[in-house]
């Protein structure tokens, strides 16, 4: 089933999007209790990149015998490789024992740096960007938000996901949102099932794209990244997905300054939209939007095959 939500403050307005997205996703908990993910768009300092990565799965931390030592070793290996590539790490934060948040400056080839770090066993980069921070873990929205200290995160827009695992495992790797590797600041959340996943995945893999999980939703992120790389605008890339991707889907995609939504031609998965002069809110159910706007608001369902994009 899965629940997805998105919000964007227009005209450069910033707000406590960490708390807002937590409330929206908590209201959608009944649509998927397995894991919760956030893609929050804040503002880092000029020229500074934010790196979110993890070196183990939550499940491993509970059952593994050697994992606590491995976590320390893997983190040290990441530090070494960052230094080797000439990245200047300005800040290090431990979000949890196995997930970290770094600020760094880097002038070289970002894709090479990312590939070099992910080459390490057990290390997965969740996101790299000037604005995007991607946080995902097992548990409901409140649990994850408290674990990672998301309340008070100030930014312009966010997307989020509550997952009911149907196509792949319950772990952080298969949780949404997906980062459109290796592009700065692009992330995707999806509700539905894609039926031509393997055909399209093989096609994209032949062109050199990497897939981190076996979750069908990752395909949307990789496909959009591929199209942007080949010169498409976000909206154009999204319109292509309507024709090319087969299956049922409603998905949200965010970039450094945009938020977009697309719905398949059957209109099989829900999406409720609220738009005012200063704010746009989207969610699988209206209760999520009401969790931050308890007053009476006018909402509607976008139609099948619709693509919409808003700017911050």
């Amino acid at each position, binding site marked *: 089933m899965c629940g997805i939500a998105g919000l964007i403050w227009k005209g450069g307005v910033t707000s406590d999007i960490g708390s807002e997205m937590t409330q929206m996703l908590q209201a959608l908990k009944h649509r998927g209790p397995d894991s919760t993910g956030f893609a929050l768009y804040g503002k880092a300092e000029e020229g500074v990149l934010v790196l979110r990565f993890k070196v183990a799965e939550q499940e491993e931390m509970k059952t593994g015998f050697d994992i606590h030592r491995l976590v320390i070793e893997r983190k040290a290996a990441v530090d070494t490789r960052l230094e080797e590539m000439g990245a200047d790490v300005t800040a290090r934060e431990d979000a949890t024992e196995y997930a970290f948040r770094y600020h760094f400056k880097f002038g070289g080839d970002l894709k090479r740096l990312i590939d070099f770090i992910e080459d390490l066993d057990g290390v997965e980069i969740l996101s790299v960007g000037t604005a995007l921070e991607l946080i995902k873990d097992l548990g409901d929205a409140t649990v994850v938000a408290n674990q990672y200290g998301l309340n008070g995160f100030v930014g312009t827009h966010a997307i989020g996901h509550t997952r009911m695992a149907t196509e792949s495992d319950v772990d952080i790797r298969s949780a949404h949102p997906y980062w459109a590797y290796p592009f700065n600041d692009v992330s995707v959340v999806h509700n539905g099932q894609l039926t031509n996943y393997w055909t399209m995945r093989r096609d994209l893999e032949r062109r050199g794209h990497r897939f981190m999980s076996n979750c069908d939703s990752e395909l949307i992120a990789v496909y959009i990244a591929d199209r942007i790389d080949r010169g498409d605008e976000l909206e154009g890339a999204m319109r292509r997905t309507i024709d090319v991707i087969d299956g049922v889907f409603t998905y949200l995609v965010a970039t450094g300054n945009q938020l977009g939504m697309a719905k398949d*031609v*059957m*209109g099989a998965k*829900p999406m*409720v939209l609220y738009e005012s002069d200063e704010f746009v809110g989207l969610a699988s*159910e*209206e*209760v999520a*939007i*009401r969790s931050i706007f*308890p007053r*009476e608001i*006018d*909402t*509607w*369902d976008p*139609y*099948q095959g619709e693509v919409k994009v808003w700017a911050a």
Partner: protein
Amino acid sequence: MGSVTTSHDMGLHEEQLAGRTQQMYFSATAEENFTYPWSYEVDYANSAEFDAADLSISEINLKIRELMKSGHGSITVLNPRAKHSLGVGILNRLNLTFEGSLGYFGCGLIDGPNVHITGRVGWSCAENMMAGTVVIEKNAGSLFGAAIRGGDLVCRGQAGARVGIDQKGGTIIVGDSVGAFTGFMMQRGRMIILGDAGDNLGDSMYDGTIYVAGKIASLGVDCVETELTDLDKKYLKGKLELYAMQAPNGIDSMVKLTSGKQLWNYDNLEPTEKKLVL
């Protein structure tokens, strides 16, 4: 052994199959009383209202039951805040008002009440409604009036995809446009759409009638346009006046759609079956 009364003796077998149809007819006489024996005696003049903001879904629905039990015939629910499954399973006469919006499955499985919703409704509103009226002032989600069997279901705004899927009776009126697959597998009843209709309108409909005032993106399989008769116009005029609604270009310019009945194969035998018979 005592005497056995068969259903034939009781006169229950007046229905008959007529021509190429599976539609069953029976003569429900006007004197028959169809109210439920356990229904509450309510007085419309006796009104009550309560705030649903801090109540759970079951608490709200139980509160409505309690108020009906104590004879309240007019109930207003404040701040429903788009919660799901509100006002479901009411098998009673009642004036029910929601001051706000409902989530999914609102007013499903109802038989009798007159419901007024000042906000919007989510997916599957008034699913399997048997009788009564539901009037929504704003928009409706997909699957609006899925499988309804009777009563009037009115949305003054726009509705999502698959409006009146599997409709088996009653009337659905939408004031603005509707999405794809509206009237999918419709079996009986009438649908009035005053805005535009999405792709595959009336796909695989068995029977029933769809009236559209706006543009139609495309017709589904076996959905055909037919003549708008004087009787249709009279019906449309009456229904729309009842809810103070208007066809944007007048009733005369509306389009009437029904089933082409090309997919009806009820009486035909499969090739293998034919071999056995012949």
